[in-house]
């Protein structure tokens, strides 16, 4: 199918879906919204796949958008992101059918297909205004979706305001950067921008501005503050769409503007990206490793993974700026592959978290547990996602992190001091991130799903409806596909890299069963690892199956008579060693309330301990800004104290100033 028709399909289905969801009663609404969202996603995938297959598309519609025009251009880079978003949408749409059945709000459901459509169209934008409009439509629709459950929890409102503010701040940076770009280039179509001949300073200003903007969308520290708030509060299909798909558009922006339109740049740009990515990865994973709210954990994990992706892109850009295209293309391919992998497993994880939330009403890991016997399918599928997110073989996250590490360590020969310092640190960051990531997902899966339930809600959990499980199964299958055969994405990634003039260098990876890197020695075979594990496991099982049958017995509680689930290790206690090790970074707050007996202060009735780990970056950076704003308001409202005389005095003062200025400048 041609890309143009696919995009038309996206729009038409989204419109029909939205109208349908508005018109349908509460019973069928989720079905309509879900099916149309999935439909939009299918068309997005079709468009993306066509573009990745080498088809290109460009169209200008001057009748739309006052003061500008609509230009749509799809190349392989756009195609990758269209396909990614479309894929996530298909899964989230299917999931929504069961998830929102009977209680999805009219607004929330009808906006779902529109959100997906906006996201799919963003990478298809071909000029600055079109891009900005679509970008902001996407932001607005997602904001409204985040707010969909505002009646249930007051925290939704806060999350919405933070999200709105941060996303708008990001827009401001992008807007300024792109408009500056367009004005210097003398035209606002991407073609004109690409051909522009600008001074280095201008290019750097533009890059830094757009990087800040796109970084905020990608959840970069310190602009990430919206992410761990908004993702947990949104309905789960929306969380999945935002976390798996929308944040990727930040990556798209960096690639499109930095490597395509600006055509690469000096090395420090990419060092900046690398550092921002590294800091985000570490900070994100640290926060995730101590998070207790399952969806908040997943939100921080998104910051972590986007950090890793940008770290790869930054390192790739650095090598490309040095003229080392082999490593440049390898690292950017690693970043793109990780983006795909992240989309896969984060969709799965958020949907899993959604199922848990739906079944128990809980996001608090400390109160979950025991789901493995109550929601076996959900548990298993979440486990698949957790394995991938922990970047362990045979999960799909492993392959892309392996690629990333390969790219980083091969930069050392022939490097200069900057690279020689940056690369080991980058490897250290990736490694620590990976290690903490593993701890994080062991915690999420182990305390959230295994053992015995720690609350009545968790004890009463029921398995999710079939459509939800099916959607998660699809996501798991995608993850599995990506895990087993990353090499098959080689041609597509090559075509994407061809859209980036300063990076492209043949195909970075090849091979079938074994993934091989081109230009440097390195190979990995996910299939063989999986097969090896399977064979060895089979061997173990076959060899030791003889003997006495398994017996179930009470948990060994050192002979104690009562062993209740509250004695289990919780997520908080699981994370306690890490909290203590990273004390200086996390600064946890402890509250100990001791209640004494009425009769004597020496007898203690109860001790209540609470630990909270706030976002330290947020606490350090944002309150001063807010305080400054309030101060400004307070100062200015003194001008507006109600006295006519003061108002008139202001006018007289203004008049005098004007007269003096006129007199002086005569």
């Amino acid at each position: 199918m041609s890309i143009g028709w696919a995009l038309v399909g996206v729009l038409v289905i989204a419109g029909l879906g939205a109208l349908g969801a508005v018109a349908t009663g509460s019973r069928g609404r989720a079905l309509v919204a879900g099916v149309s969202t999935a439909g939009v996603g299918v068309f997005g995938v079709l468009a993306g796949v066509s573009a990745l297959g080498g088809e290109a598309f460009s169209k200008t519609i001057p009748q739309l958008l006052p003061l500008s025009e609509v230009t749509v251009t799809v190349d392989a880079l756009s195609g990758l992101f269209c396909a990614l978003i479309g894929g996530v949408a298909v899964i989230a749409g299917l999931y929504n059918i069961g998830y929102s059945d009977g209680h999805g709000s009219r607004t929330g459901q009808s906006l779902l297909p529109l959100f997906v459509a906006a996201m799919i169209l963003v990478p298809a934008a071909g000029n600055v205004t079109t891009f900005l409009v679509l970008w902001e439509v996407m932001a607005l629709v997602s904001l409204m979706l985040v707010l969909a459950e505002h009646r249930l929890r007051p925290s939704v409102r806060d999350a919405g305001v933070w999200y709105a503010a941060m996303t708008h701040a990001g827009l401001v940076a992008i807007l300024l950067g792109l408009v500056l770009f367009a004005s210097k280039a003398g035209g606002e179509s991407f073609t004109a921008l690409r051909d522009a001949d600008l001074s280095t300073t201008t290019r750097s200003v533009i890059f830094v501005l757009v990087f800040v903007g796109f970084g905020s969308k990608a959840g970069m520290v310190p602009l990430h503050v919206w992410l761990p708030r908004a993702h947990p509060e949104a309905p789960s299909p929306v969380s999945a769409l935002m976390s798996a798909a929308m944040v990727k558009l930040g990556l798209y922006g960096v690639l499109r503007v930095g490597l395509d339109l600006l055509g690469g740049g000096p090395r420090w740009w990419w060092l900046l990206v690398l550092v921002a990515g590294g800091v985000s990865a570490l900070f994100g994973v640290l926060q995730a490793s101590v998070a207790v709210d399952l969806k908040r954990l997943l939100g921080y994990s998104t910051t972590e993974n986007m950090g890793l992706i940008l770290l790869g892109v930054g390192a790739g850009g650095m090598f490309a700026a040095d003229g080392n295209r082999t490593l440049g293309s390898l690292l950017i391919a690693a970043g793109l592959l990780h983006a795909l992998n992240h989309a896969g497993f984060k969709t799965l994880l958020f949907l899993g978290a959604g199922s848990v939330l739906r079944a128990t009403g809980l996001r608090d890991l400390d109160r979950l547990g025991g789901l493995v016997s109550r929601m076996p399918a959900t548990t298993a599928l979440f486990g698949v996602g957790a394995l991938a997110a922990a970047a362990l073989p045979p999960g799909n996250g492993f392959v892309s992190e392996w690629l990333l590490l390969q790219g980083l360590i091969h930069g050392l020969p022939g490097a200069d001091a900057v690279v020689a310092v940056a690369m080991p640190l980058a490897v250290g960051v990736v490694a620590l991130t990976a290690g903490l990531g593993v701890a994080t997902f062991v915690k999420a899966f182990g305390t959230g799903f295994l053992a015995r339930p720690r609350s009545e809600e968790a004890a009463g959990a029921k398995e999710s409806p079939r459509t939800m499980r099916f959607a998660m199964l699809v996501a798991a299958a995608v993850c599995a596909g990506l895990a087993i055969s990353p090499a098959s994405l080689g041609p597509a990634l090559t075509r994407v890299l061809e859209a980036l003039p300063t990076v492209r260098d043949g195909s970075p990876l090849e091979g079938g069963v074994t993934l091989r890197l081109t230009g440097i020695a390195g190979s990995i075979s996910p299939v063989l690892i999986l097969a090896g594990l399977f064979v060895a496991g089979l061997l173990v099982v076959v060899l030791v199956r003889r003997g006495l049958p398994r017996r179930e017995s009470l948990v060994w509680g050192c002979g104690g008579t009562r062993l209740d689930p509250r004695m289990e290790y919780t997520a908080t206690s699981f994370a306690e060693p890490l909290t203590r090790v990273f004390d200086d970074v996390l600064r946890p707050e402890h509250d100990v309330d001791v209640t004494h007996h009425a009769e004597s202060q020496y007898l203690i009735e109860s001790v209540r301990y609470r630990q909270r780990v706030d976002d330290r970056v947020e606490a350090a950076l944002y309150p001063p800004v807010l305080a400054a704003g309030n101060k400004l308001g307070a100062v200015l409202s003194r001008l507006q104290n109600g006295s006519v005389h003061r108002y008139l005095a202001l006018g007289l003062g203004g008049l005098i100033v004007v007269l003096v200025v006129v007199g002086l400048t005569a």
Partner: protein
Amino acid sequence: MSTLGVVVQVVLLIVVAPYLVGVMRQVRARLEGRAGAGAGQPWRDLRKLFRKEPMSPAGSSWVFVAAPAVLVASTLVIAAVSPFVATVSPLDGVADLFAVVALLLLGTVALALAGLDTGTAFGGMGASREMTVAALAEPTILLAGFALSARVGSTNLSAIVERGQQSPGAVLSPATLLAAVALAVVVVAEAGRLPVDNPSTHLELTMIHEAMVLEYAGRDLALVEFASALRLTVLLGLWANLFLPWGVATTASAPALLLGVVAFVAKVAVLGAVLAAGEVFMAKLRLFRVPELLAGSFLFGVLAVSSSFFLA
């Protein structure tokens, strides 16, 4: 023919692993003035455990049952692909340093999840501590690997070992020495030996590894114990062959393999004895001093990488 090498290697490791533990216990017993149970005791323990009844605590799930198998399987894969006896392996695509590290971690994760799945405070505590140590050890391993691979231009273990054999002098380079120290600390931490963990403790509060497996019984326990012996062997073997690559067969011929087997057994036995002897002189570190140890090894890792660049 190289398949033979794999089979020999796997069988060798399976056989040797419990004996290694036995040797280490024996060394330790002798240094403590005891007679010791003999090097074959671990095998006797295992034989008995395999005949005993496996038990699942109430409320646990398939994770608890599957974990020992995953643990053993992941270690077996490493045993099959890494160059312990011979560098020629048909599973070249797996014999990557990072893949091996990840597979080790996979085993750790399986056991940690099992520990959490039991629903006891000890299981959770062990899992929590184990994951903390594993997470903090990760940067050192990868940086040490970085330092080793920088010389070779590949993270393929066979390639690194072969390069070591071709230029024995490079083993004494500062980068390699620093990497060796860094990796040694990590091996100790990953294998759960003193001063990070005490494998023979009976005091639950100081346990890391043991706390996770407190609920295992019978053949499940046998698998776990076997796996931990095998992991120790694998780690010591890897360390030995990365820094002392002599004797590893580069062809799949019978004499070369034989030499490889002998060299491997000797190296691992010596290293095990040294490790056990060292443990006699050490007390276990407090859990929250462990990060300091690992941070130190991380520093060595960084130094190893940068010295391989600046001093090369």
